[in-house]
């Protein structure tokens, strides 16, 4: 029974990933990330993503603060934050977030305050969506690992493919 649920969970994960890929939320960089995960660093992806969320939240807070200050929006600083966010987003393969960042940066380069605000809202929305979905994803993975650990403590197959 437990073995079956492992497969079930794996299928769930794949389905979720497929949806995220289809929606363009994630791109193949996320798969690259997954490939880097192996026995030596079994939590690599979730570790990176956690760092990513931590950093991004900080950046989003800063961006919000910069934009709320009506008179003195420091667009240059905003650009630096956005570059950061863009860089890390593309590193984990958060494609849609990255694209919104690009739009945001374009707006900030033009000192377009309303555009920036709109972009920020979208960014926050996308961020929440991504966070929820990835959270779900990691939860399933955790369950799967637990299930797998109960039944088969041996190292997982198909994880480190030297051909990749």
């Amino acid at each position, binding site marked *: 029974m437990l073995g079956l649920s492992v497969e079930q969970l794996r299928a769930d994960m794949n389905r979720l990933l497929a949806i995220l890929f289809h929606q363009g939320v994630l*791109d*193949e*960089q996320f*798969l*690259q*990330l997954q*490939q*880097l*995960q*192996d026995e*030596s*660093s079994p939590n*690599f992806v979730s*570790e*990176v993503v956690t*760092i*990513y969320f931590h*950093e991004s939240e900080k950046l989003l807070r800063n961006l919000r603060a910069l934009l709320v200050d009506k008179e003195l929006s420091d667009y240059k600083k905003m650009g*630096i934050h956005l*570059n*950061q966010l863009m*860089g*890390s987003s*593309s*590193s*984990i*393969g958060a494609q849609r977030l990255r694209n919104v960042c690009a739009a945001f940066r374009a707006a900030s380069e033009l000192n377009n305050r309303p555009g920036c605000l709109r972009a920020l809202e979208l960014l926050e929305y996308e961020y929440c969506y991504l966070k929820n979905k990835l959270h779900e994803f990691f939860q399933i993975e955790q369950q799967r690992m637990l299930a797998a650990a109960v039944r088969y403590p041996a190292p997982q197959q*198909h994880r480190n*493919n*030297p*051909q*990749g």
Partner: protein
Amino acid sequence: MGEKRQGCHMMTVRGNEAVGTERKHSALLHYCSNRGVLGISILLMLFLSKNIYDHMDDEQQKRRKEVLVGMCDQRARMLQDQFSVSVNHVHALAILVSTFHFYKNPSAIDQETFAEYTARTAFERPLLSGVAYAQRILNSEREEFERQHGWTIRTMEEEEPSPIRDEYAPVIFSQETVSYIESLDMMSGEEDRGNILRARATGKAVLTSPFRLLNSHHLGVVLTFPVYNSKLPPNPTVLERIEATAGYLGGAFDVESLVENLLGQLSGNQGIAVNVYDVTKSSDRLIMYGHQSLERDMSLKHVSRLDFGDPFRRHEMICGYLQEAPTSWIALTTSFFVFVIGILELKSQAEAADVAKSQFLATVSHEIRTPMNGILGMLQLLLDTELSSTQKDFAQTAEACGEVLITLINEVLDRAKIEAHRLELEAVPFDIRSILDDVLSLFSEKSRQKGVELAVFVSDKVPEVVVGDPGRFRQVITNLVGNSVKFTEQGHIFVQVLLAAQAKSVMDAKTEICTNGESECKVQSCIQHYNTLSGRQAADDRSSWETYKHLGDESGDASTTVMNGDTSHSVALMVCVEDTGIGIPEQAQKRVFTPFMQADSSTSRNYGGTGIGLSISNCLVELMGGQMDFKSRPQIGSTFFFTVEFRSCENNLIINLEKSLSDDLPNPFKGIKALIVDGKPVRAAVTKYHLKRLGIQAQTVGSIAKAVAVFGKYGSSLISRDEKPPDVLLVEKDLWIPGEEYDMMQLSSWRKNGHLYKLPKMVLLATNITVAECEKAKAAGFEDTVIMKPLRASMVATCLQQVLGIGKKRQHGKDLLNRSIGKSGLLSSKKFLVVDDNVVNRRVAAGALKKFGAEVHCAASGQEALKLLQIPHEFSACFMDIQMPEMDGFQATTLIREMERRANAHVNRECTTEGEARKGEWHIPILAMTADVIHATLEKCLKIGMDGYVSKPFQEKSLYEAVAKFFEPKDTLNTS
């Protein structure tokens, strides 16, 4: 997948339509890649400049008109003034006559007085040719009058005594200029009569309509004043006036000379034509002055009204320019300049757009590449899993398509780079022959499937090693050969490399032959079995046997010329790729080098491809200092040829390179002799060339019978000679298959009988061979081996090694060595530094590197990196983000290099006693990490002192490749 391919074709076709037929690669045409836009832009410019011209011309016309109006009015006013002055004076004369002739009794005026007075006052009436006074005589008074004066009244026309009328108006006084009219009855003339009647009825000066004056034959008018004999009542009726009339004073205006004089006084009359008309009857305008028939520009005229004092008559003056308005040069030049400036503007815009387009293409191509890599990677992973055979087939097809797409994108990127002038050529020494072998091996499978003979020949005169860009050279050749393979179904594809000078002399020789008897040449070529590689006709007859003879003559002393040639000269090569494919239709030949142009859209449907390759090749060849051209005849084939400039290599480098080359082309064949049996000289020459590269002495005979004869010579009598018989016998398949069974049997029987000193190994050369044929060949004695064409030196070498059983061990060892260097092994126990301000990026990079077994340290900023890289440090390489706040990657690199230089200088100073060998010890490889391939291109990174770059977000494979470059060669050197 079918759908995908369809889409691809659609794109191509659309591309074809959009590009149109422009051939030039000028920026303008590129900008207006669609002809409509260009046309509209030029039309717009034309329209604008036309408008400007029209406007300026209008202005000029207006000014001209104004001038005309001014001149016309001025002339009319002057004429009118002078006229009225004269009229006034005639009026005064009338009063004079009435005062002194009628009121005085006896009359104080006689003809003499009148003549004298009028003559002396003539200056007052410059316009009148003369004045005269006619008295009113009723019929009843005629006799009395005639008697008194002593003459009879005569008519004007016949000058004969007048018939009897009611009244007469004979001239009694006249100015001397018109004395001939004395005694003429003025009322006998039609015009004058009307004038007289009107004058006495109105009491005013009246004018006749213009007529030819009596003796001058100038056009003129007669002015008539009535003279009354008694004082009239204040408001006299017409009857009272007639009753009181005593006579008439008349004067003739010579209008013609009048106006002539007048105009003479005025300036600027040369360009102006003046006509004066009597328009009393509007339907019938009578000319008073001017030439009706004169051709002139009447498009512009002005009419001025003239008032000569006679209310009954109306006159007008019409002025026009004699000549057409001159073309206004200013307007013309101005508009022309506007047009030119406009076009220049358009051009510069187009150029800007062109650069933008190239940038865009480069960016977009990159953007497409990233997801494509994803797709391919996924497909590869998919292929690693367990699939059913159908699934596997699908996945493999998808992968193949993806690779084709990637290639296409790379090509587009190439073109964009060339256009944005971002492509730079390498200058490294390389071996042309091995590159050609590589290209051949790429297509060998395909050509074998089609049964097309593929061969390469490099002239002996071409140096072993040249300096240039091997990658681009290979790209061009690959493209050309690829095209040929694609479009050729039977016959051959033949790649030839000659020195340009050599090729030229051959060509000259050939044109000589052809010009001497062109028709003969043609006829011959129709009948003759063509002397090409496969015996089929080719578009350009360059590889015919004449050429070979030519080359053969020269090749004897070739090696010596190369040896004492100068060291760093430029080497101009002529490469030609000949095929016997479908050829290029005449009408399409012009646009072969235009991107996305295939011969026609059906081509892309039948053969696939986009047609961008040739244009890129053309660009590359131009970059390499050469030119590309082709000859093609439909259904016969195409020959593409191009020249390239390489530099010849310096001697020490040659030695270096030869060492490494000798590795992959083992040379244990010294002293081995071969006999080639081939009926086709060109093909035999190719085989000979490959054998020669291996150091094998080769001899050619045309048939098996001849070969048998050769062996017979050795076999029967001359064993004792120093010369040994050939070790290998290479036979072309088509020479054997037709069934010279007998000869073969003889040969093999000899073999069996041990007739020969040493049995020659028998090798069959074939393009394609069926299993049955293979069996047959084995039976016939070719049990040794069959070499599948296309021939490549390395392949021939392996085959012959097998056959002759010599030196294989070395090769083996190396292969094993190569295999043992796995991914993880390479980077293990290396220490890397990753510098990135972004935590996530840092973590990902570290993760990727760790996977290769490396130890990774991270730095969050340039400063931190500097601290970590204080010499001495243990890092093997450093990954540096370019975009970082405060200190960016470029700055950090510069500082690191500075630091290293100082340390090295220090070390060198200390170690001078030990020798200079330890120079430049500290140099950490720095690899840039950037998300932006276009802006931070490799050049900039290299300039600043970096050693390479990895694009972000990085992929395991590219990351590995980038790093491996720095460690692999060292490792192989150490271990080998």
